[in-house]
C-alpha cells in the first residue's frame, strides 16, 4: 500500500464513519458542536454559578480548556476500541493495523475543525481580538496532533491485547481532565514548584495553558518546551507506528482470537 492509498483510505473511512454517525441522530452534524457546548455549559454552571470560581473570563477560560481537551480525550478513548471493533475486517485482510486508530484520529480531527471554528467565534464575540500571537496556534495544534496519534495507537494496541485497558483508558481520561487545569487555573497553585512540575510533565496541562496564553492572555508560550514536546511526540509516534507495522500480524491474531 502506497502512502497515497493509505491516506486516501483513512480519509474515506473517516468520512464514511462521520456520515453514518450523523445519519443515526436526528440532529445529525449539529452534535459536533452541540455536545462540546453542553459540556462547557454544565461546567460553567457548576464552577461559576454554584461554586463561584474567581478565575477571570471564566467562560472563555473554560471553553478553551474543555474544547481543546475534548479533542485529545475523545480521540484516544475512541481509538482505544478501534482495533477490537474492526476485528471482523482485521480477521479478513492483511491491513496495516495503524489504519484503524488513525482513521479515528482523522474522524475526530474533522469534527474538531468545527469545534475550533466555534471556539474562535466565541472568543472573538467575547471581545478578544486576533493578534500575531495567534500564529503560535499552528505549532501548538501540530504538537497536540502528534501526541494524539501516538497515544491513540498505544491505546488501540493495549486494548487489543487486554480489553481491561479500555476501562483504564476511560478512567485515565477523567483523571487527566482533573489534573490538566481544564476548569481551574494552574497559576492558582500556591506551590510554584508543583505548578512547574505539572506544566513540565503533563503535556496536556502544558498545551491547554499555552492555548490560553495565546488566545486569552496575550502571552508567548514556552517555545523551548513546546519544541521538546513536539520532538518527543514525533519520535514516539514514529516508533509506535513502526512497531505496529512490524508486529501487525500478532495484533491481528490477538484481536481475532479475543
Amino acid at each position, binding site marked *: *500500500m502506497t502512502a497515497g*492509498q493509505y491516506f*486516501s*483510505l483513512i480519509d*474515506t*473511512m473517516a468520512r*464514511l*464513519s462521520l*456520515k*453514518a*454517525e450523523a*445519519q*443515526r441522530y436526528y440532529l445529525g452534524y449539529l452534535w459536533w458542536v452541540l455536545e462540546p457546548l453542553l459540556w462547557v455549559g454544565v461546567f460553567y454552571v457548576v464552577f461559576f454559578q454554584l461554586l463561584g470560581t474567581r478565575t477571570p473570563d471564566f467562560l472563555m477560560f473554560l471553553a478553551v480548556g474543555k474544547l481543546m481537551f475534548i479533542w485529545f480525550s475523545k480521540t484516544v478513548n475512541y481509538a482505544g476500541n478501534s482495533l477490537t471493533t474492526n476485528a*471482523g*475486517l*482485521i*480477521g*479478513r*485482510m*492483511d*491491513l496495516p493495523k495503524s489504519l484503524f486508530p488513525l482513521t479515528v484520529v482523522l474522524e475526530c480531527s474533522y469534527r474538531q475543525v468545527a469545534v475550533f471554528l466555534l471556539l474562535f467565534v466565541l472568543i472573538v464575540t467575547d471581545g478578544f481580538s486576533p493578534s500575531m500571537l495567534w500564529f503560535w496556534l499552528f505549532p501548538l495544534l501540530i504538537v497536540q496532533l502528534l501526541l494524539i496519534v501516538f497515544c491513540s495507537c498505544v491505546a488501540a494496541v493495549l486494548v487489543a491485547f*487486554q*480489553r481491561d485497558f479500555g476501562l483504564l483508558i476511560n478512567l485515565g481520561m477523567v483523571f487527566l481532565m482533573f489534573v490538566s487545569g481544564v476548569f481551574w487555573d494552574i497559576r492558582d497553585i500556591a506551590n510554584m514548584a508543583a505548578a512547574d512540575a505539572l506544566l513540565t510533565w503533563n503535556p496536556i496541562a502544558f498545551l491547554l495553558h499555552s492555548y490560553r496564553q495565546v488566545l486569552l492572555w496575550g502571552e508567548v508560550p514556552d517555545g523551548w518546551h513546546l519544541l521538546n514536546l513536539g520532538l518527543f511526540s514525533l519520535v514516539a509516534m514514529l516508533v509506535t507506528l513502526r512497531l505496529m507495522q512490524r508486529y501487525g*500480524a*500478532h495484533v*491481528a*491474531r*490477538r484481536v*481475532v*482470537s*479475543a
Partner: protein
Amino acid sequence: MSAVIRLEGVTMSFGLSGANSGEHQVLNNLDLEIRQGERIGLVGRNGAGKSTLLRVIGGIFPPATGKVWRHPDKTVALLSLGLGFKGDLSGRDNALLAAMLQGMSRREARKRLEAIGEFTELGDFYDQPVKTYSSGMRSRLGFATGLLLDTDILLLDEILAVGDHLFRQKARLALKELLSPDKTVILVHHIEQAIKETCHRALWLESGKIRQDGAVPDVLAVYAAET
C-alpha cells in the same frame, strides 16, 4: 501453473484471553502447496482449523512456527460470513471500502460499485445500512465484492452456504464461468455438491493436519464414509 502459496511446517496456536488463559493448538505441522488457477475445496469437521488455515494463507495471522510464502504480486481476499462489514454503512459504502482496501483508488473503486450492486440483486437495500441485512444479503454483498474486484486469490469461508437457492446457484455458476481460469479459489463449504461443482482438488483437514489431499471425488468419498 506456478505456485502461488506454499506452507511449510506451519503450526498455529491461540492464546486464550481473559480468565480462561491457555493455548489451543489449531494447525499442526502442516505442509501445502497451491498453484495458480486451482479451485480447492476444504472440508473438515467444526474446529478442524479450516478458518484458521484460510487466515494463515491470507497472511492475516503469522504461523507460530513454520513458513508461509505467498506470491508477492497476487492480491488475496478472505470472504466470510457476517464479518468485515461496517454495519452502520450502506452496502454501497462497504463495497467502496472493500475495493479501496484491495488497493484500488477511490475513483477506480467508484466505477465498480454499480456492477457490484447489480450482481448482489439487493435493489434499494444496496443503499441501506448493512446492519439491516439478513445473513443471505450479507453473503451476497461479500461474494459480489470479492468476485468483481479482480482478486487473484479468493478464500471463501462458508460464504456460499447461506442465502436463497437461486443466488447460491448464480454464485457457483459465477465461480465457474465469470472467474478467469488464472484466479485461485479455496472454498470452505459444508455442502459437498458445491465443492463437486466448483473444485477439482479437495483437502480434508482434521485436528490441524491434512488427512487427505487429492481429486474431489476420492477425498469426498473417504470423508463421507468416515464422518
